[in-house]
């Protein structure tokens, strides 16, 4: 057979080029799609030329595994709803981490030299942690596991000990000192069980609302693991190294941004069970005043500028379509409508934008917190739909657990209408004194139904 393996490196280089161009094109919503299509085509060709790698066997197994994995990935990705996107991303991320761990395992079972061996161990550890951690994140987001933090006494000590044991067993895999009568084949399962266990235990105490941070971080983890595994071959696979590092950088950046948006440090997300520092019950002046949909409709009809602040509650009630209808109706009456999107509205970075885009809201209506905050004082009506903590003015008050969290300053608008299911507190469990302000009115009920009523009432006016 003619040797075509010379084609491998040029194709890998082109693949990396298109990956970077693809990410580059994501700097605008209109060019983003073509970017991912190019990157996808490049990846497909890279997969094909990999079959040309010298000395490979097991081609039947390879093709079979690609068909199984690819088929499953394709079907699941086509079926998933946009609301469930966060757990899907966590799931695929875990798959990548698992694949990286598998590569490490195969490399360590074979003969590896010292430096690439230690890289394979580190890659295996990170990959395995990402695999089990992402799976827990997936289960929690999917609702197959209680999303609340699962904590027990001495949890952090136990976790750290397991991590330490995993590292020790990793060192043993490499050195397997002669005074211990065990072989690599015996250390290796121990190493992976401990690594998987650590990822599992590390994710248990993290609550549902912290998932944006967690998913971003495991994304970075998988990227790193892939990069490290690029060195576990006789000739390093630099395509894996570069792609992995780029993802590692992306994930780290998003992790930090998400944590900042919630005013939490990374260690606080992972080690501090949230809400442990309860604020002393503060005195709230005034009372909650409720309002009917008809009155809100009148208020909206006479407004010049309306801002909608959606939260995860809107997605839970599946109210996006109705909100879009309302937006169109208001715009047809020459009323300016904007959406104020808090970075952690939703269950992953940018999730709320996706949900609104799915409902057909044009992206030029969606505004980031920093862009929209100066506009609230000149806004006639703010509709808060299913959001709570991200609009809680307690964030401006010293001593509150939310203190310092950048919020949407909706309380500066002339009128604030809060659409809410009942009188409960937000995820953080903190009383929201916005609800008691003079310019705030509460519109109780299921968000989808309530917005539907608003649409009907507005049509009659």
């Amino acid at each position, binding site marked *: 057979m003619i040797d075509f393996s010379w084609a491998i490196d040029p194709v890998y280089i082109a693949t990396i080029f298109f990956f*970077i161009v693809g*990410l580059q094109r*994501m*700097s605008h*919503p*209109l060019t*983003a*799609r073509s970017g*991912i299509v190019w990157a*996808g085509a490049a*990846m497909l060709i*890279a997969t094909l030329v990999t079959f040309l*790698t010298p000395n*490979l*066997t*097991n081609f039947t197994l*390879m093709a079979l595994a690609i068909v199984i*994995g690819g088929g*499953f990935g394709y079907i*699941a*990705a086509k079926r998933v709803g946009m609301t469930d996107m966060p757990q*899907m*991303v966590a799931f*695929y991320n875990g*798959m*990548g981490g*698992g*694949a*990286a761990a*598998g*590569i490490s*395992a*195969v490399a360590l*079972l*074979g003969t590896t030299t*010292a430096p690439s061996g230690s890289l394979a161990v580190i890659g295996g550890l990170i990959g395995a942690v990402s695999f089990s951690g992402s799976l827990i994140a997936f289960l929690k987001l999917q609702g197959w596991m209680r999303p609340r933090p699962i904590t027990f006494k001495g949890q952090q000590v136990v976790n750290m000990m397991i991590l330490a044991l995993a590292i020790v067993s990793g060192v043993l895999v490499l050195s397997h000192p002669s005074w211990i009568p065990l072989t690599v084949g015996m250390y290796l399962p121990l190493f992976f069980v401990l690594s998987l266990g650590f990822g599992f235990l590390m994710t248990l105490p993290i609550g549902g609302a912290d998932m944006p941070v967690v*998913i971003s971080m495991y*994304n970075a983890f*998988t990227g790193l693991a*892939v990069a490290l595994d690029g*060195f*576990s071959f006789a000739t390093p696979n630099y*395509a*894996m*190294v570069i*792609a*992995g590092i*780029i*993802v590692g*950088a*992306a994930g780290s*950046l*998003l992790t930090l941004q998400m944590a900042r948006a919630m005013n939490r440090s990374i260690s606080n997300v992972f080690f501090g069970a949230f809400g442990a520092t309860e604020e002393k019950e503060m005195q709230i002046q005034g009372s909650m005043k409720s309002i009917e949909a008809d009155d809100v409709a009148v208020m909206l009809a006479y407004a010049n500028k309306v801002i909608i602040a959606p939260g995860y509650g809107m997605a839970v009630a599946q109210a996006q379509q109705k909100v879009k209808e309302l937006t169109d109706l208001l715009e047809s009456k020459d009323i300016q409508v904007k959406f104020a999107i808090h970075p952690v509205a939703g269950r992953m*970075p*940018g999730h709320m934008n996706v949900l609104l885009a*799915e409902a*057909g809201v*044009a*992206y030029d209506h969606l505004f*980031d917190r920093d862009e929209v905050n100066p506009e609230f004082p000149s806004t006639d009506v703010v509709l808060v739909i299913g959001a709570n903590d991200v609009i809680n003015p307690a964030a401006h008050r010293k001593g509150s657990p939310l203190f310092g969290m950048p919020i949407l300053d909706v309380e500066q608008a002339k009128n604030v209408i809060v659409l809410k299911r009942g009188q409960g507190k937000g995820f953080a469990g903190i009383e929201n004194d916005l609800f008691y302000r003079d310019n705030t009115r509460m519109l109780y009920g299921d968000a989808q139904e309530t917005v539907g009523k608003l649409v009907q009432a507005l049509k009659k006016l």
Partner: protein
Amino acid sequence: MNDVTMLWTAVYIAMLAAFTGYVVISRVPVILHTPLMSGSNFIHGIVLIGAMVALGLATTPLEQIIGFIAVILGAANVTGGYVVTERILQMFDRSGKKPKKGA
């Protein structure tokens, strides 16, 4: 290439890649952060080619089993990551192209 040379080459590459990643990704607007995440998810799906080589070089049944699973996982990662990202971006594409109503 000896080990020391390889190590330093790796550090050079990692540093440049990290900067590239940081610069390119800081320019992605907040509204596209979800597709950015699923897109970077797709990009680390390149682990598939590594898994293929690992399986291709596997000799013992144990190595073959692990390699086989790794290829399945890698293939699911890369396919799923791509399809999900493309679906999301398609929506932004569509929502952007809608004709705006005149004032």
